[in-house]
């Protein structure tokens, strides 16, 4: 079974990598990176069971924390550039005033 799980994780990782190379929308690219991180986690959990120690599960937990922080920074940067480029500024949406 270990091999099955690992091949699945490799497949997901590769799909994520292709997505990063293919897509243009920064948010979608970032989602593909998240997919890659998830694939890594699956590999860690599988290896933890394979080796019979909990290190893998622990690392997967840390990866989730790191990914959460990375998402915050990444999305903040992406929102910043979106606002500049097409001025999707929430403050400009003042049509309902009158």
């Amino acid at each position, binding site marked *: 079974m270990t091999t099955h799980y*690992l091949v699945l*994780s490799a497949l997901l*990782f590769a799909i*994520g*990598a292709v997505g*990063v190379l293919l897509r243009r929308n*920064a948010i979608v*690219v*970032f989602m593909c*990176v998240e997919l*890659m*991180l998830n*694939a*890594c986690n699956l*590999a*860690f959990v*599988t*290896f933890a069971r*394979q*080796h019979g*120690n909990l*290190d*893998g599960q*622990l*690392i997967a937990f*840390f*990866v989730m924390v*790191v990914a959460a*922080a*990375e998402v915050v*920074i*990444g999305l*903040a*940067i*992406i929102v*910043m*550039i979106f*606002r*500049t480029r097409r*001025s999707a*500024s929430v403050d400009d949406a003042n049509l309902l005033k009158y």
Partner: protein
Amino acid sequence: MNGTTIPAPTIEYALLAPMLIVFGAAIVGVLVEAFFPRYLRKSVHVPLTLLALAGAFLMTVLQVVREGVPTTPSAMGAVAVDGPALFIWGLILVLAIVSTLLINDEDQFVAQAAAVPGSADEEEAVRSGYAQTEVYPLLLFSVGGMMLFPASNDLLIMFVALEVLSLPLYLLCGLARRRRLLSQEASVKYFLLGAFSSAFFLYGMALMYGYAGSLDLKAISAALGTVSGQNTLLLAGTAMLGVGLLFKLGAAPFQAWKPDVYQGAPTAVTALMASTVLVSAFGALLRVFWVALGNLDWDWRPVMWGVAILTMVVGAILAITQTDIKRMLAYSSIAHSGFILTGVIATGAFEQNQGALSAILFYLAAYGFTTVGAFAVVTMVRDAGGEAGHLSRWAGLGKRAPILAGIFAFFLLAFAGIPLTSGFFGKYAVFSAAVAGDALPLVVVGVVTSAIAAFFYVRVIVLMFFSEPAADGPTIATPTIGTSAVVALAAAATVVLGVFPQPVLDLAGEAASALFIR
């Protein structure tokens, strides 16, 4: 629950004090942001940052002088504070102090990052003299991560450190005051590519864990001799870890981000990245490839050969085609990481490793100071719209500002590795280590590419001194004390390391004497 108690972990606070001071000061900086009025913040942040970095440096020195270099890992085996790590800490801290002076010095940073460029809000913020003082805590967090990265003793903490050092840099890149769109673009590019590469690093970690059953560098090294039948796992893991680390160095097939990010980021941040991040990433690379995978060197060396050659060639040749001074320095930084990689490859017996390691450490010190100085000069040559990036604007600078142009020419000569500059001894040390490590072809490539790069540096010098200045040429900003100090310090370091390199060479040799602890 069976009521088991968890034994309290032991942490060597004194040993880790430099890092803890930096992180602690960063947190205090966040509190300063929260509780101090706007007009006071900068005058609190700057001394706090400088004091913390200086204090951390002092603690590093004290540790070496009073207790010597520890021989076992600390913090429950997570952190390895050994000779190379202490040397790298000291180097990073000094370079960070210098970069802080540069960051503090002028209005390099955006007045209000959340205001859309070109909007009325931004003008208003600039007029009211706002400043994004969060830069200082972010800098400290990043420096903390940079210290942890090369000192990590297992891959998990290395991954966390990689993120701690990267995330603040992604942010800092996007905060330039002028040409904000370029800056924001640099930030997005750096972030997306950085996240992509750290995913590779992580998958490499997973495969390593699958191979060895542990993430300790020592355990991985031990598993090389005992685990059999899983070599593909090991090789794939090594390759992917390598991708993650080589990306941070900007080594060649993964160099694409470097020119863009270096050009777009505020120049002070570029100076920080070009010096400290390179130092830190080389420390981590050495730790992974020498400590964990040292016995696998027959397998990774051929690939590293290719990477080193490609990096030197790409860095030197693409530098010729550049017309922007910051991009040119970025390519120069790529070429220099190639030169240092020749030292990484030169492994062998114990003495050979010692020699190579001390050469790498010396090279990092020499290059770090020179590059900070070069970027400091770049901040001073200004146009109406900010720094004069285009090379044509630098024509005739030698006639307008002979001293500044002379110093810049000196830095360029140091990059080229002309004798009597620090660059010469750096290159000499690394190349002679590589020759001793049977990597002669690599050294030949290194010398040839140095010559190519030297051609370009000389072209810039000729441009500065032997062409007529343009009528509407850039102005030279009157340097403030900080910038002058940075330039003077960098020039002094370049001269001293070029004329009396022996003390620093000895220090690097001392740091490398016991190699890495496991």
